C-alpha cells in the first residue's frame, strides 16, 4: 500500500543581520572589496519585519494565500503588501530575528552560543509566549552574558558575532581551535539550519495533530554538512533536530542532493513507510544563512529592497495509508540517471515524460506540476528569469514535441498545469516542496486528482561530477482502497464474533 502525505509545514525566519554578516555574497565582498559601495549601501535596502510579513510570496509560503491567489496579483509583488497579513499561517509562521536567536541558542548543546543578557531579557517574554515553545525548549534559553565577554570572544577567540538591529547581541564560538569544519562560521550556518528546522518540525506536529512520540523516523534534507575534520559531512542533523523538537521515539539520518534533496528524501520516506519499516516519517529541512542576500548586488543595483532576507524551512509527514490523505504513488518515479545527460531537454524528459509514458499516462494527465518554485521577484532582476515559468514552458514544450499538445496550446498548458513561484531562493527549499501543503489540500478537496513534484539539483557545484540530478514523484487522491479493506476486515471480525457468540449460546442450550 502506498504511503500518504499527512501534513506539511512551512516557516520563514526574518534574518536581516544575517544577510549582512553571513550571506556569502556579502562575506566574499568583505574579503575582496571591503570598502565597496555595495556594502555601504546594502543596509539601506533591508526590509523591516512588518514588510517581510506583508510580502505576498511570504504569506503564500506559510499558507495564508494560495498560489492561485498570488498568481492573480500582478508582478512584481514588492509594492503590493497584503492587507491584514499575519505572522501565523495555516502551515507555519514568519518568525522575527530576535525570537529566532533565542531558539538558536536553545538548539546549542555544546555551550557555543551566548547571547547578551539585556537582549535575552528583552526578547524572552515574546519567546516564552510562543505557543510552540515548550517547557523543554524554554528551559534551554540561558540568562545571557555581559557585553565584555562577547567582545572578548569575538575579538580574541575567533568567535562570530551574532547581531540584531546592527548591534552585537551575542556570539557563537568555534568548537575546535584548529578544525575549520568546526569553525565559528560553520557552527553558525549549521545552528541556523538546525534551529529553523526545529521550528518547521514543531509546526508539523501542530498541523498534523500527531503525537511527537509517534514519529519514528526523521530525514533531514538541507544543504549543510556537520562533522569534524575526520568526517566532514558525518551528520546527523536529523537526530539533533528531533531531539530538540521532542521526538523521543525517532531515529533518522540526513539525505543530500543539492536542491533535489527534498524530493529524494520524500521518495525515501514514502518507501520506508510503504515497506512497513516505519509508520510516520518526517522529512525536514532548515534554512541557509549562506544564501541570504545571494542576489543582493543585483537588487541594490536596481534600487530594490534585498528580498533574500529570510531563512526558509519546511517539514512533511509521510504516514501509513489512512484511506484519506493523498497517496505518494511510487509506481511513477521519474529519475535522472547517470546516462541521461545534462541538457534541459534530457533532464525534463527523464523526470516528467519517461515515468508517465511507462505508466501509460500523458503529460496532461497530471493536473499540477511543481518543479523549482523560486519567487520571480528575486530571480528576474538578477538575470535568472522566471524559473517556475521556464520549467512549465519546458514541460509544455515536451508535450508539444510528444504530439499530445498543439503548439498554440502552450500558454494554456502553463496556466492550467503550472503555478507562479513564491519560495525564497534557499537552494533546497524551492524544489517542489513548497507545493506539498497546497497539493494535499487540493487533492483532499477534489480540486485536482494528480500532482507531480519535481526535484532538480546542480551537482557540479560540489566539483565531484558534472552530472545534473533530479527525481520526481506523483501525489494522487487517495483511492480509499485501504479504508475499504480495513472496513471489510472490520466487518469480517464482527461476523466472526457474532458467530462465536452464537456458537457459545447454542452450546449453552445443549445442556
Amino acid at each position: 500500500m502506498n504511503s500518504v502525505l499527512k501534513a506539511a509545514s512551512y516557516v520563514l525566519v526574518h534574518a536581516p543581520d544575517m544577510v549582512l554578516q553571513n550571506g556569502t555574497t556579502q562575506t566574499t565582498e568583505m574579503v575582496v572589496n571591503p570598502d565597496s559601495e555595495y556594502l555601504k549601501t546594502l543596509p539601506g535596502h533591508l526590509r523591516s519585519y512588518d514588510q517581510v510579513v506583508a510580502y505576498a510570496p511570504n504569506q503564500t509560503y506559510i499558507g495564508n494565500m494560495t498560489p492561485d491567489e498570488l498568481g492573480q496579483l500582478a508582478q512584481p509583488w514588492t509594492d503590493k503588501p497584503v492587507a491584514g497579513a499575519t505572522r501565523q499561517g495555516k502551515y507555519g509562521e514568519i518568525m522575527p530575528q530576535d525570537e529566532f536567536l533565542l531558539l538558536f541558542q536553545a538548539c546549542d548543546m555544546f555551550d557555543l552560543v551566548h547571547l547578551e543578557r539585556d537582549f535575552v531579557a528583552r526578547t524572552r517574554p515574546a519567546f516564552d509566549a510562543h505557543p510552540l515553545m515548550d517547557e523543554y525548549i524554554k528551559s534551554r534559553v540561558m540568562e545571557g552574558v555581559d557585553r565584555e565577554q562577547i567582545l572578548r570572544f569575538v575579538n580574541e577567540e575567533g568567535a562570530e558575532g551574532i547581531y540584531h538591529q546592527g548591534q552585537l547581541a551575542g556570539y557563537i564560538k568555534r568548537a575546535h581551535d584548529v578544525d575549520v569544519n568546526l569553525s565559528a562560521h560553520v557552527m553558525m550556518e549549521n545552528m541556523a539550519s538546525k534551529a529553523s528546522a526545529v521550528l518547521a518540525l514543531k509546526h508539523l506536529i501542530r498541523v498534523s495533530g500527531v503525537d511527537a512520540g509517534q514519529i519514528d523516523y526523521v530525514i533531514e534534507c538541507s544543504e549543510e554538512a556537520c562533522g569534524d575534520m575526520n568526517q566532514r559531512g558525518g551528520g546527523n542533523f536529523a537526530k539533533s533536530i528531533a531531539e530538540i523538537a521532542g521526538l523521543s521515539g525517532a531515529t533518522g539520518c540526513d539525505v543530500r542532493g543539492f536542491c533535489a534533496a527534498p524530493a529524494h528524501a520524500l521518495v525515501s520516506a514514502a518507501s520506508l513507510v510503504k515497506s512497513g519499516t516505519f509508520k510516520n516519517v518526517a522529512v525536514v529541512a532548515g534554512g541557509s544563512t549562506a544564501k541570504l542576500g545571494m542576489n543582493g548586488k543585483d537588487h541594490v543595483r536596481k534600487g530594490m529592497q534585498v528580498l533574500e532576507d529570510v531563512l526558509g524551512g519546511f517539514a512533511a509527514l509521510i504516514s501509513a495509508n489512512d484511506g484519506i490523505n493523498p497517496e505518494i504513488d511510487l509506481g511513477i518515479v521519474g529519475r535522472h540517471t547517470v546516462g541521461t545527460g545534462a541538457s534541459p531537454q534530457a533532464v525534463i524528459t527523464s523526470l516528467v515524460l519517461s515515468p508517465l509514458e511507462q505508466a501509460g499516462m500523458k503529460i496532461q494527465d497530471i493536473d499540477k506540476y511543481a518543479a523549482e518554485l523560486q519567487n520571480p521577484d528575486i530571480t528576474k532582476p538578477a538575470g535568472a528569469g522566471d524559473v517556475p515559468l521556464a520549467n512549465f514552458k519546458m514541460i509544455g514544450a515536451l508535450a508539444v514535441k510528444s504530439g499530445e499538445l498543439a503548439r498554440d496550446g502552450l500558454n494554456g498548458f502553463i496556466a492550467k498545469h503550472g503555478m507562479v513561484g513564491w519560495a525564497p531562493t534557499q537552494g533546497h527549499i524551492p524544489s517542489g516542496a513548497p507545493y506539498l501543503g497546497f497539493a494535499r489540500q487540493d487533492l483532499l478537496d477534489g480540486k485536482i486528482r494528480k500532482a507531480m513534484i519535481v526535484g532538480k539539483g546542480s551537482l557540479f557545484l560540489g566539483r565531484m561530477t558534472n552530472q545534473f540530478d533530479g527525481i520526481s514523484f506523483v501525489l494522487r487522491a487517495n483511492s480509499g482502497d485501504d479504508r475499504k479493506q480495513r472496513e471489510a476486515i472490520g466487518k469480517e471480525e464482527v461476523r466472526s464474533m457474532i458467530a462465536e457468540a452464537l456458537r457459545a449460546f447454542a452450546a449453552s442450550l445443549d445442556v
Partner: protein
Amino acid sequence: MDLENQKRVKELAELHGPENILVILGAAEGEAAGIAAETVTAGDPTYAGPLTGVQLGLSVYHVCEDAIKSELDPTVYDEQIGMMEMVLDVDDIVNEMTAIREQYSKY
C-alpha cells in the same frame, strides 16, 4: 558568471591564445547571456571575479544563434536543444549577444 568559470576561461585564453577561443553560452535569457558575454569580452561587470578589468574580447555566441546552430547536426540539435529553443526568447538573446559582440569582441 561563476568565479570558477571565469578562472577557467581566463586560463584557457592564456593557454591557447584569445584568438583561438570560442565561448558558447547556454543562458536562459537575454540579460543573463549578455552579462556572461560581457564578462568574456569586456571583463566582469560585477567586479567580483578573475575577469574583472580583463578585456579578453573573445568570440562569444549563444548556442541558439544561427552561426552555431548551422554548424551542428540538426538531429542532435533537435534532441538536445529543440525543446529549449521553443521555450526561450531567442530574439532577445540574439539582440543582446549581437550588441555585446559588436561592442567588445576583438576576434
